[in-house]
């Protein structure tokens, strides 16, 4: 009761002090909720609908295609600063040059697309492989496989597709070098490798 009397006597000071405390309580809860949403966004933003193909056109050119979608069901936009795709063939029989690059594409920060909150963005790539050296190495791989009793063609080669996208989440700006530990919080890294689903 003495406490209540004291509160009533100092009502103005108590009110100010309570407002001060409640303000920071609201700020704490809001910030913690944002933190939860940001961490949750890391789990919810993902790649989906990946598909790839290889075909021979009527003029004999090898056509490699790849498409994938970035699904962003979160409340934050994602501004991508690096998007890259590459298709390679791993040739385990040819020593140091065992990776045969077939096709690739890279988009840097100067043309960074934005994946809006609550939406998907599709990325489609196609490449006509006309480089004689690349075709020569692919055919060498095919010939060796056939000589070992295997059956493979330019269309059925085990092409490995890799897709990587880096982006910043929302509008959470920080100093990239001085506050390096915040990079992992605000940066979204999305990776796809067709071998994972082979």
């Amino acid at each position, binding site marked *: 009761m003495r406490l209540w009397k004291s509160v009533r006597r*100092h009502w103005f*000071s108590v009110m100010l002090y309570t407002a001060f405390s409640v303000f920071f309580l609201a700020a*704490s809860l809001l*910030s913690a909720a944002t933190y939860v949403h940001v961490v949750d966004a*890391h789990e919810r933003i993902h790649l989906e609908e990946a598909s790839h193909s290889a075909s021979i056109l009527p003029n004999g050119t090898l056509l490699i295609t790849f498409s994938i979608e970035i699904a962003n069901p979160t409340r934050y936009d994602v501004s991508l600063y690096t998007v890259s795709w590459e298709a390679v063939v791993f040739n385990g029989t040819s020593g140091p040059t065992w990776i045969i690059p077939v096709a690739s594409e890279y988009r840097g920060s100067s043309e960074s697309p934005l994946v809006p909150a609550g939406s998907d963005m599709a990325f489609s790539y196609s490449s006509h492989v006309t480089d004689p050296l690349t075709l020569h190495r692919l055919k060498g791989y095919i010939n060796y496989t056939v000589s070992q009793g295997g059956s493979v063609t330019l269309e059925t080669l085990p092409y490995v597709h890799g897709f990587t996208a880096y982006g910043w989440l929302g509008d959470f700006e*920080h100093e990239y070098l001085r506050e390096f530990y915040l990079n992992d919080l605000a940066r979204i890294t999305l990776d796809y490798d067709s071998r994972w689903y082979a």
Partner: protein
Amino acid sequence: MKMTSDEVVKTLLLMVMSGIPVAFMSFDFMYPNISTPSMEKNLLVLFLVSILAGLGPGYFLKRTSTAMMNVILYVAFGYALAVVLYSAPYSLYDLELVLPSFYYAIFFRYTVILLFLFVLGGFMGVVFGQLVRDSISREETRFSWTKRDE
């Protein structure tokens, strides 16, 4: 030092109410980019808010020793609360860890120095709070004697 039940309740209330700003400031210092509103790691602002947090115990607790002890208590409580806020996505929502290993070590490393600031600011706030209370008390006494004289 014997405390009445009223004093214990008052001390606990003050500990919670002043601990909340300490919790926010610690969290904000760790994550200035996602905090709202953010103090942007401005140590002067942090120090001034620490003084404000200490004003309450100084004003409401008559004994200086209790008020000083309350500063230690609310800083400890606030820092513990900041750790809870910091671990909320993982402890409350079971999400996957985003930051690299040594998760709590990073938090302590970046924010432990603030404890000195909070305690120092809190002590200064206690002194200011007591000065304000004494000043108000003196003024009230003066007014009451003036009335009697009339």
